[in-house]
Every structure is written in C-alpha cells, then in structure tokens.
C-alpha cells in the first residue's frame, strides 16, 4: 500500500477519485454532528447553553494532538524509507494541526470566560496546548527557512521526531507545575462521566473533525504536488526570450511525476 502510493501520479489519480466522496462524507457528518450538538443535545444543568462550546473544543483538542503524531509518523517514514509522499504529507498536515490547536485555544478561552471567569489561566492543560502550538510554529518556520526545500523537509522531519519524544516530557512537567483543568472525562477507567445525550454528538463531531482533517490533508497534498509539477515544468522549459511566446513544455518534461 505504502509503496504503491509512492508514485505521485498514482497518488494523484487515487486521491482525485476519493476526494469527492470524502468531501461529501465530511460535510454530512459535520452537519449531523453540529445539528445534534447545537439543537438536540440538552443544556448542561450547571453550565447551561455554553456547554455547547465543548462540541468544537474537545474535537479540536483531540485533533491538535493527533495531527502532531501524524506529522511525526510521516516524518519517520520519510527519514527511514525516503518515501517521496511522506514529506509532502507532513508539511501539508502542519498548518492544519496548528489551526486545530488555535481553534482549541480560542474556544477554550471563550469557554473559560463564563465558566472560570477569566480568558486565560496558567493551568497545566492550557499551557501544554500552548506549547504544542509553539512546536507547530517552530516546525513550520523551520521547514520554510531554507532555500533548498529538500533540506527544510529533512530538518523538519528530525524536529518532528524530537518533538514527539519531548511532548510527553513537556506534558508531565507542566502537570507537575500546575493543575486546575478538569480531569479527562471520556477515556477513563470505569466508563465516561459524560451523559450519553452529550457523548454521542461529541463522538460524531470528533469523527467529523477527523474526516475534515483527512479531506483538507488530501487537498493540500495535491496542491503541493501540483506546485512541484508546475515548478518542474517551468525549469524544464527552454529559457524564454523577450517577445516570444512561452513554448509548450515537451511531453517528457515532468521528471518529478514520471
């Protein structure tokens, strides 16, 4: 599977075929999830209507962390097997992960204002999400800091692996430092502490966010590959003289995709 997809042209064909279905599923699941979350799920007996922020906040938090592991996995594949699409996947995923992290921070802040009476507290979980956001920013900045895109990709891959080793240590240290956030209420021994009427919409929203990530990741990867192809075509074309038309690229001028 991994080796078959290593051919970018084949990847373009398969992802192009999968994308419409994926898009429709994403829109459908997110639509159902949002309807359930905003209209069907009951308001919380303590928090009232503001509990609905949870249906965006928690899936975003799951994705914020999950995407980092996706990047680390893709970086590992890129470094070990030199898989040509793994670098593309890691780089395409990074801004998405950063966006999920930002959504998580922003909704958390909006939720914290009515619940805790403050936009921001230096609580352990908030802090580790903020650090995660900086890890994303560092990765994105590093990948784009080189004139040679290949060097940026390899440096980014090493950093992603360093980050994934360090992430649990950072979390542990921040936990040690301070804790105020409520403990985990979904995945824990003894079953979830959250009622089924809220759990179901939450899980659907989480699935919707995962689908949204997959769709956007495919779109971004396809864009990156197309950009690479366009660059290769431009470089392969003979130098242009002033006043002449751009000659059509010769049919064998796409070394990257053959």
């Amino acid at each position, binding site marked *: 599977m991994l080796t078959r997809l290593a051919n970018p042209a084949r990847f373009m064909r398969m992802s192009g075929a999968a994308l419409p279905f994926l898009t429709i599923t994403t829109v459908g699941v997110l639509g159902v999830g949002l309807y359930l979350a905003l209209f069907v799920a009951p308001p919380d007996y303590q928090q009232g209507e503001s509990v609905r922020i949870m249906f965006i906040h928690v899936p975003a938090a799951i994705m914020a962390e999950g995407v980092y592991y996706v990047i680390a996995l893709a970086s590992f594949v890129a470094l070990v097997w030199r898989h040509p699409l793994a670098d593309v996947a890691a780089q395409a995923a990074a801004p998405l992960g950063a966006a999920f992290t930002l959504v998580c921070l922003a909704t958390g802040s909006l939720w914290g204002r009515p619940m805790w009476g403050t936009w921001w507290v230096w609580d352990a979980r908030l802090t580790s999400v903020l650090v995660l956001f900086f890890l994303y920013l*560092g990765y994105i900045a590093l990948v784009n*800091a080189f004139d040679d895109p290949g*060097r940026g990709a390899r440096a980014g891959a*090493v950093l992603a692996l360093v980050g994934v080793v360090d992430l649990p240590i950072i979390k542990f240290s921040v936990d040690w430092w301070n804790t105020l956030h409520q403990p985990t209420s979904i995945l824990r021994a003894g079953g979830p502490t959250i009622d089924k009427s809220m759990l179901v919409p939450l899980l659907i929203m989480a699935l919707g966010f995962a689908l949204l990530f997959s769709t956007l990741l495919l779109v971004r990867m396809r864009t990156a590959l197309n950009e690479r192809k366009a660059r290769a075509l431009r470089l392969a074309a003979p130098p242009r003289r002033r006043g002449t038309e751009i000659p059509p690229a010769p049919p064998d001028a796409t070394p990257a995709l053959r």
Partner: protein
Amino acid sequence: MGAYFGLFRRELLLAVRQGGEIGLALGFFVLAVVLFPLGVGPEAEMLRRIGAGVVWVAALLAAVLSLDRLFAVDHADGTLDLLALSAMPLEGVVIAKCAAHWVTTGLPLTVISPFLAELVDMDTAAIPVLALSLLIGTPALSLLGAIAAALTLGARRPGVLSSLVVLPLYLPVLIFGAGAVEAGIAGGGARPHLLLLGALTLAALPLAPLATAAALRQALD
C-alpha cells in the same frame, strides 16, 4: 578517545582565545537578572518571590544566545565536513562539542549564580540549591540546544529560528530547575525536583547527540 579530548581541547581553546565568547554569555546573564529589579521595582519582597524564576529564565536565555557558535563557524569554514569524514562517529563529535559548550557557558553561569542570587535577595538556604540545580540542568540546555543549532544550519535567520525551535524543548528544564529553587526557598523538598532535573539531563545525554548527528548529516548532505 584521544581524538575526543583533542576536539574538546580545541573547542575550549577557540572559546578562550577568540575572546568574548564566555564573557558574552556571562554578561548577558548578569544583565538580564539586573533588568528585572529595574522593571518590577526594587522591593525585596517582590524580588524574593520571583528571584528563582528570574535567574533560571536568564540562564536559559543566555544558553540560547550562545547556541549559534556550536556549529555555525565550523560549518562555514568546512571544519564540520572534515569532522564528519573523520573516523569519529558524528555522535561523539557532538558530545565533545556539547561538553566544551557547557564548560564555556553552563559552568560559568553556575559559578556566578550565587552572586546573582544575592542581587534578587534570595534566601541564603536556597542558594546552594540554585547552584546545584544549574549544575545539573545546564548540561541539558547545551545538549538540547545542539539539536536546534544543527537543525538551523544554513537556514535564513538561524538565530531567531533556533530560539523558536529550542524554547519549547527547554520548558521541562526550566520548570524543574526553578521548581527546585522554589522548593528550597519554601524549606526542603528540593530533592524530587533535582532528581527529575537529573533524569532530564541523563535522558538528553544519549538521545540529543543522536538527533543532533542526524540533523548534521542532513545539513552536510
């Protein structure tokens, strides 16, 4: 083994003879600590409260400031290529260079930290804890910093970039380091912090050179 000591000696000699390298880190460290009372006011109460964090943050920033000299010069003049071609494994080269970096930054910072502790009116009982925490923690700063320095070789604006990359990695060291001093001020109980700090350094000792060497190989490709 002799080759590593040779490299270590060379790094120390370069740091001493090129002048200013050690002084720069120390000067920055002192200045950063001195700026805090000017910023937050001279009340001893306040300074005593934030002193531990201030000294540790200043040490962290001084370490970041000195990172670029780890590999950048050797990369620019080709020494790094020769070291990579030599019989020494690149990981060993990294350890030797990190050791020299620590002796020229972390160790001097540790030595002058008691004087800075007086500037922020730290409790006398906590001063040995501060020096001990810096002694245990600063090797981790050099080792983790080496990763960032190697990753940003040849980048545009490597200085800014390496600080963005390295500061999240420094976070646990800062927390346990400053935590140890806080616990020392509160009276005893600094031991678990110091042990965790030691664990960080010991974990970084084998892992960081691996990552740094991987990053250097990418840079020298």
